[in-house]
């Protein structure tokens, strides 16, 4: 039995009907509809006419046309291009490199020689770029930077001319100020309250910190105590905690300066009223010039809680 289909169904399937893309059942149903529906049949004819018109106007040349001969040459031109691409490809050229093995060992030797030479050149370049501390370049750089950490100045000195290079620092016109302690000596509270004398050489850098210091002399209770581990640790801690306003030139430029401090801790006892008057000798700063310091500065760094009076050297 042939199913009845209306125009709506048929129109949806007319294109597929013309193109032969319907199933057998659909094809039969649409065909039966077209037998009695003139409108849909006319549509089918139009679709077929459109197809005929398209095929009629297609630009496919005849077999004996010149155009066909041109198209047939497509094969040779394509193959030439494919061959050229293949020859120019990296893989092909890489394979060609190993077709003649006589050149392999010379090539490897040359590559090795170039590699070694390159490594040597780079190592020389690297070594020359490293600045050694004893080199002339470092010395020149240090001298060119007066007031730097490696070339500290002397506070309050009047030297303005570098004897070696005739260098004149205009900043030194009025002398260099002393670095000023930012605390009130609390950094030294950890020092045992015993009579002691310490001589310390140090550099106060531009940031107001102690950069290099050296314990020159240490006495406790009047006996030589230099090198005592406790004193070294104690001073090390005190030095690390110390903060200074950096030394400055008269125009306000911060500079590093060499300093030598003599730290004297002295206990003064209340004199016995029945005893004979005692003359307390003044603490004498061992102001000897000790290399590498160029001046001896006296720091007000004495505190003693046991006595009201303290002597600062």
């Amino acid at each position, binding site marked *: 039995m042939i199913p009845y289909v209306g125009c709506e169904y048929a129109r949806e399937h007319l*294109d*597929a009907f013309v*193109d*032969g*893309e319907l199933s057998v059942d659909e094809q039969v149903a649409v065909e039966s509809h077209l037998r009695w529906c003139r409108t849909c049949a006319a*549509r089918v004819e*139009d*679709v*077929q*006419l*459109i*197809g*005929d*018109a*398209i*095929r*009629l*106007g*297609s*630009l*496919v*040349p*005849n*077999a004996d*046309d010149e*155009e*066909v001969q*041109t*198209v*047939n040459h*497509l*094969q040779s*031109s*394509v*193959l030439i*291009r*494919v*061959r050229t*691409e*293949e020859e120019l490809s990296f893989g092909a050229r890489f394979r060609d490199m190993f077709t003649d093995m006589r050149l392999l060992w010379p090539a490897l030797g040359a590559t090795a020689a170039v590699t070694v030479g390159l490594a040597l050149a780079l190592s020389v370049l690297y070594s020359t770029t490293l600045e050694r501390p004893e080199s002339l370049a470092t010395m020149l750089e240090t001298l060119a930077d007066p007031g730097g950490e490696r070339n500290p100045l002397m506070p309050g000195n009047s030297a303005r001319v570098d004897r070696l290079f005739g260098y004149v620092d205009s900043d030194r016109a009025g002398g260099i100020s002393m670095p000023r302690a930012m605390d009130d000596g609390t950094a030294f509270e950890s020092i045992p309250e015993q009579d002691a004398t310490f001589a310390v050489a140090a550099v106060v850098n531009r940031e107001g910190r102690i950069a290099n210091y050296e314990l020159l002399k240490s006495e406790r209770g009047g006996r030589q105590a230099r090198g005592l581990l406790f004193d070294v640790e104690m001073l090390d801690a005190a030095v690390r905690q110390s903060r200074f306003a950096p030394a400055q030139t008269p125009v306000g430029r911060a500079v590093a300066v060499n300093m030598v401090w003599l730290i004297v801790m002295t206990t003064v006892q209340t004199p016995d009223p029945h005893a004979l008057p005692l003359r307390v000798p003044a603490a004498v700063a061992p102001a000897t010039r000790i290399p590498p310091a160029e001046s001896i500065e006296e720091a007000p760094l004495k505190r003693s809680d046991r006595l009201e009076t303290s002597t600062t050297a």
Partner: protein
Amino acid sequence: MLSRTVLNFMATPISGGFVKNAGAVAWSEVDTQEAALIARCNTGDEAACADLVSIHQRMVYSLALHLLGDRDEALDLSQEVFLRVFRTLSSFRGQSALRTWIYRIVINQARNRQRWWRRRHRSSQVSLDDHLQQFGDVESKTDVLPDRQLASKETSTRIWQALDRLPFDQRTALILREIDGLRYDEIAFSLGVAVGTVKSRLTRARQTLRAELLGLRT
């Protein structure tokens, strides 16, 4: 034989009757032959590559010509297509017939090229009249039914003018169907869309052309 099958396809005069028989090609036999040809091409066999080009060159050129409308451009595009085919042939996994796969490449290349080319070279495109003057009367190479031939010449010109104004995807779908005789699923693969999309594009394209046809009658 693969070569004979496809060459016969290309040499056969284009007609409505042939189009309906296009799906009757014995694909299983072709697949076997194609697989062997592709394997030879992938090993760098130059003779196999030459065979592949000679089998498909007219088909590729024809589609390129219909999509672009310029012979030199179509020839150049055909070369690009075959270069692309040989570059990517190793990735072909038989997901379709080789012919359909090549169609897809042609369409993609033509889509990229015609966007700017058609705007700049429209004046140098081949008109149907010029084509007929150069290659003779259409009646000599078609087997359209006599009662349709009377109106065909003018109708064909107007239909092609309207076809030229269609969007690329609709025009391509209609050309693949009417000239190359591809089935809906083959058109869908060539365009990279679903079969339903192909149906709708064909319907819309034919509606537009039918409107042109009705205008021609009035």
